[in-house]
C-alpha cells in the first residue's frame, strides 16, 4: 500500500463519522438511485468494518464530507474523463472529499442483467475510490482493491490484507475487526 504525499487523513476525533451525498444533478439514469445507494452503502461499510470510521448518507450535497457524482469529459477539476473505458473514476485525497465517476461508462450493479462487454462494476470502483478518499494511494498488489486497474465485467470488492493494513495505519483498527478472519478468507479464496 502507499499513501498520498504528506500522508493526509481525515483528522477528526474518534469516533469519526464522515457524511456522504450524491449530486442532485450529475447522476446516471439507467440505474435506479436506490440501487446506487445500496451499492455505495455496501462499499462504505467494507471500509467501516476495518477502521473506527462511520459513514452516513445525507441529503445536503454541498455540506457533505464526501460528494459523489457522475461526470462527462472536462468537468472542471483539471482531470477530464475520456469516454468509454480508459479512466473510470477518480477521487481526491483527504480532506477534499470529491468523488467523481466517468458518466460515459456502462456502469453495472448486476452483470446478469447487463450484457455489455464494456460494463464496469460500480461497487468495485466505489470501493476503490473510497480508499482514495480515506487517504490510500495505489498499490502494486494485484489482488488488492487499491490496485489501479480493473477489467470490465470484473468484480473486486473484498478488502485484502494490503488494503486493510494501509488504512489501519492511518485510522487504527475497528475494535470489532479480526485480522484472523481476513487471513482465513484470503486463504480460502486462494485455495478454493
Amino acid at each position, binding site marked *: 500500500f*502507499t*499513501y*498520498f*504525499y*504528506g500522508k*493526509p487523513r481525515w483528522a477528526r476525533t474518534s469516533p469519526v463519522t464522515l457524511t456522504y451525498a450524491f449530486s442532485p444533478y450529475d447522476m446516471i439514469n439507467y440505474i435506479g438511485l436506490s440501487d446506487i445507494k445500496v451499492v455505495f452503502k455496501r462499499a462504505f461499510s467494507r471500509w467501516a468494518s476495518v477502521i473506527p470510521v462511520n459513514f452516513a448518507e445525507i441529503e445536503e450535497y454541498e455540506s457533505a464530507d464526501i460528494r459523489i457524482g457522475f461526470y462527462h469529459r472536462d468537468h472542471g477539476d483539471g*482531470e477530464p*474523463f*475520456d*469516454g*468509454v*473505458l*480508459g*479512466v*473510470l*473514476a*477518480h*477521487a*481526491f*485525497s483527504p*480532506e*477534499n*472529499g*470529491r468523488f467523481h465517476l466517468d458518466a460515459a461508462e456502462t456502469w453495472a450493479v448486476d452483470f446478469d442483467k447487463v450484457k455489455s*462487454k*464494456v460494463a*464496469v462494476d460500480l461497487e468495485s*470502483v466505489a470501493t*476503490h*475510490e473510497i480508499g*482514495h478518499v480515506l487517504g490510500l*494511494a*495505489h498499490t*502494486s*498488489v*494485484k489482488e488488492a482493491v487499491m*490496485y*489501479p*486497474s*480493473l*477489467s*470490465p*465485467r470484473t468484480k473486486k470488492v473484498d478488502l485484502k490484507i494490503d488494503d486493510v493494513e494501509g488504512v489501519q495505519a492511518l485510522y487504527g483498527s475497528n475494535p470489532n475487526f479480526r485480522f484472523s478472519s481476513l487471513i482465513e478468507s484470503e486463504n480460502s479464496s486462494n485455495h478454493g
Partner: protein
Amino acid sequence: RITPDQVTVITVDSTNTHNATWHEFTRFLDAGKGSHVSGMSELKKYFKRFGYLPFIANFTDIFDTQLESAVILYQTKLGLPVTGKLDTDTISTIISPRCGVSDTDHHRIHATKH
C-alpha cells in the same frame, strides 16, 4: 498508412473490451530502447498522465532512456516483471481501464477542502 498486419491486430482485438484510445498502444509490443515507432509520443503522454514521466512540451516517438526508466518504474509499481520493455504483460496492463489517480505523483490530485 495502415498495413495489412496492423489491420489484423486491430481486428483481433476488436472483440475485447479495452479502451479504444489506449488500445492503439498494442502496436508498441516488444518495443525496447532505441526503437522509433510512430505515435510513441502518445504512450509517453500516458506515462506522464499517471506520474511516470515529467512534463515535456514535445514528446518524441523514440524509445529513449527516459521512457525506459518510466517503463521500469511502471512495471515495479504495478507488480509486473521488470524488463524495461513493452512486453505482453506491460502492454496488457497499460491498455486496461483504470483509476485516474496518478500512481506516483501524489501531489497531482491532492487538494485541500476550502
